[in-house]
């Protein structure tokens, strides 16, 4: 079945018809669904696949199995060892990337129209028939261990891992999905096979495609690419409880600067107040120079090079996080300013001017995201992971614009919890 409609992005701007986004829902004969945007201007196709679950399906004593397995997908498949597979891929000038995070395993591919079938046949071998040769396991394991050693001395990684551990404890969200030196060293080929069966299954697939391919061509390709994966994968993790009370955790680290990660609980994506919270965060700590934190802490006081905050929506938890770096002797002042801003917005909400400016920015920036096949495929698969409907691009700006000043004041009291903020500081801060 092919269902087509026009998802025009022309809400904030009068875009020409060519900029409309025609998202088709394509269902293969075998029942795999993909969202497709056809664009035949350039002879290549971008493909994004996400398998829900990710590193959080790891058995605790096999922590890091999904991550290592994902890194091994391109290290040999079917009759090809690692080198033969890479040479075959490069000879087609196809590009494949594989990535595991807490909630999903992702596949990004782009391939030329002229050898599309060969490229997808190769990708199919990697996804369905990975070899997991022992020498490849041992070599890639050393790379993972090397990254773990680097993270152990990287202040940003230390801050993030410390915050996650304090917030989520024994839940998979509380530890690094790459595993520990101990668990990674113990992983076996059988663990890779089990992780592959558990993570790459048809009951958790989301697919988005953009570029030089028609819906009629895509359907059968989906079955050839993904139809031989197992029907069902490993169970998804339970809901993650938030364990982190207010406070300050200092991790001693010899550096002239401190890296600070801060936050408290967030708000679910499906909450009716999510759009108000989204606007509030953009005004407070969005990636713009006019956001409040950037203005007060960087532009007015020069205490940092950059500061931002983020609403993090995981499948099983919500966080409201932020991060910055500051000289050890300035971090106390930066935190004091930040606490004051957190209290001020909780009490006062936004000004009418801020609300209007933020709405204009968000609605204006949205259509600019859809530029290029790669960007469109990534957006569409992300929408599926977040559970958004296929017409989200049509309704999204109207929902941003529907948020009122009263909404932001009401939701600010709920979202910003100055009494709940926890700061993880990696460095040697003074005056705290």
């Amino acid at each position, binding site marked *: 079945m092919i269902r087509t409609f026009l998802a025009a992005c022309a809400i904030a701007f009068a875009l020409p018809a060519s900029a409309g986004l025609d998202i088709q829902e394509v269902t293969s004969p075998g029942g795999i669904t993909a969202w497709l945007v056809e664009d035949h201007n350039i002879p290549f196709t971008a493909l994004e696949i996400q398998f829900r679950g990710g590193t959080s399906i790891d058995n605790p004593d096999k922590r890091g199995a999904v991550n290592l397995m994902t890194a091994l997908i391109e290290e040999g498949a079917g009759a090809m060892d690692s080198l033969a597979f890479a040479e075959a891929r490069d000879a087609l000038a196809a590009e494949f990337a594989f990535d595991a995070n807490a909630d999903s395993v992702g596949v990004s591919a782009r391939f030329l129209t002229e050898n599309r079938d060969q490229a997808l046949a190769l990708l199919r071998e990697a996804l369905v028939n990975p070899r997991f040769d022992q020498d490849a396991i041992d070599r890639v394991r050393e790379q993972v261990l*090397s990254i773990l050693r680097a993270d152990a001395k990287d202040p940003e990684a230390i801050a993030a891992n410390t915050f996650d551990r304090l917030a989520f404890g024994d839940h998979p969200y509380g530890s690094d999905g790459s595993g520990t030196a101990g668990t990674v060293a113990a992983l076996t080929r059988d663990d890779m096979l089990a992780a592959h069966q558990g993570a790459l299954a048809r009951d958790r697939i989301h697919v988005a495609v953009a570029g030089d391919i028609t819906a009629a061509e895509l359907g059968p390709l989906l079955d050839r690419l993904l139809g031989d994966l197992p029907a069902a994968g490993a169970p998804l993790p339970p809901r993650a409880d938030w364990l982190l009370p207010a406070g300050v955790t200092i991790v001693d680290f010899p550096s002239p*600067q401190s890296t600070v990660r801060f936050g408290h609980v967030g708000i679910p994506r499906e909450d009716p107040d999510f759009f108000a919270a989204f606007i509030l965060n953009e005004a407070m700590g969005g990636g713009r120079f006019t956001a409040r934190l950037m203005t007060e802490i960087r532009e007015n006081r020069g205490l940092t090079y950059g500061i931002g905050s983020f609403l993090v929506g995981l499948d099983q938890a919500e966080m409201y996080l932020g991060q910055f770096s500051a000289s050890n002797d300035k971090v106390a002042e930066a935190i004091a300013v930040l606490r004051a801003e957190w209290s001020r917005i909780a009490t006062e909400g936004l000004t009418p001017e801020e609300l209007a400016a933020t709405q204009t920015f968000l609605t204006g920036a949205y259509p600019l995201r859809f530029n290029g096949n790669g960007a469109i495929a990534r957006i569409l698969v992300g929408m599926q992971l977040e559970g958004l409907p296929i017409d989200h691009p049509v309704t999204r700006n109207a929902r941003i614009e529907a948020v009122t000043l009263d909404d932001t004041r009401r939701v600010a009291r709920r979202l910003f919890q100055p009494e709940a903020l926890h700061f993880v500081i990696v460095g040697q801060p003074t005056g705290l």
Partner: protein
Amino acid sequence: MPGPIPLPGRTGATAALVLALALPAAAEPVTSFTLDNGLQVVVIEDHRAAVAIQMVWYRVGSADEPPGRSGIAHFVEHLMFQGTDTVAPNEFSAIVEAQGGTDNAFVSWDFTAFFQRVAADRLDLVMGLEADRMHNLRLQEAEVATERQVILEERGQMVDGNPGALLSEQMRAAQFQNHPYGLPIIGWRHEMEQLSLDDARAFYERFYAPNNAILVIAGDVDPVAIRALAERHYGPIAPDPDIAPRMRPQEPPQLAERRITLADARVSEPYVLRTYLAPERDPGNQQEAAALTVLAELLGGNSQTSVLPQALQFESRTAVHAAAFYNGTMIDDATFGLIVVPAPGISLATAEAEMDRVIAAFLQAGPDPEALARIRTQVRAAEIYARDDVTARARRYGEGLSIGLTLHDIQSWDEALAAVTEADIMAAATRVFDRRNAVTGWLTRPEPAPDAPEEATE
């Protein structure tokens, strides 16, 4: 990863250089013209989405700074957001953001660039803003003092907090014995602390002028309409008659290799990094740079199939990572780099010896014809993939033109890469791998000595 990376601008976003192998498409609609005041304009059409990008590239970078003022080029880039006669400090970004647009800037040794990404029908507004600060920048003591703190924090975050960045900074200082490429783009801290409003004003007045700039407009735009907009906004700005070709002090013949060890407690993975002085792309003459680009790709551009990873990660298992890199898009001398991160238990001395063994073997055996054929295929595909990213295309033109390449040089770069022969690669390799031109850096931990078996117990 070490390598020539221009400083990101006002955000933490990494502004990595466009990959040398990502090419402009031959048939793309690109229009160029020059205004009477000397401003060169390039229009790149991509009508797939109603998005437009404006970039202004100034032919000035950190290698053009006066002695003792390292970091002033980057500081002025920051101060370009601090207001004009009619736009208040930080209002520039606020106006762009109010339209849903984004903006930023970046600096390298050879150029300073400012860009905005907006809906195509908002180009008029951002062209007016960018033209305004080309000649009306207003600097005030309060903003200068605060922004100086910001760049010092930036140095703290990007360089002082990162032992790998410190090693690269030290190696560059050793690599260039006379050329200002040896100075860090962000500046030495003791000089950054002294940068004044007068320094900034003098630098701005000397280098910011229409006849020292390139305007690149890309996206869903019409060249005829852009010409009219450019005439209206930029046309009235007077050229600066004192703008002259950039003549920097050049390198003398380098007679002795240099070795640097940087020990830092924050190092987790020691590595050996080597850079060689290498020829750059020159107008009308980029064949050797093309050969070096392909050489870097063959030796270490692919983490599975290229020569160094194959030999050190797959065969001898002495490394967890090995790569080669080269960026020839420079006005003066470029560098060719090799890096090896040894496997646990392997000393830096062994890793370096292994690296040299593989290079020596390559110089004997030459490139694998099949590997070269794959790279040619990828070069051709890169032309197609590159058409999907109009921002990257705009950068390629701006970067090339700002260092003095011609449109023809930029558009024929893919042909130059495709034309590289095995003999070209061997000639370029033989010439570049001269240890007298090399700096070898070891990044290690302070205790015990770098050779000690302590690495094995990690």
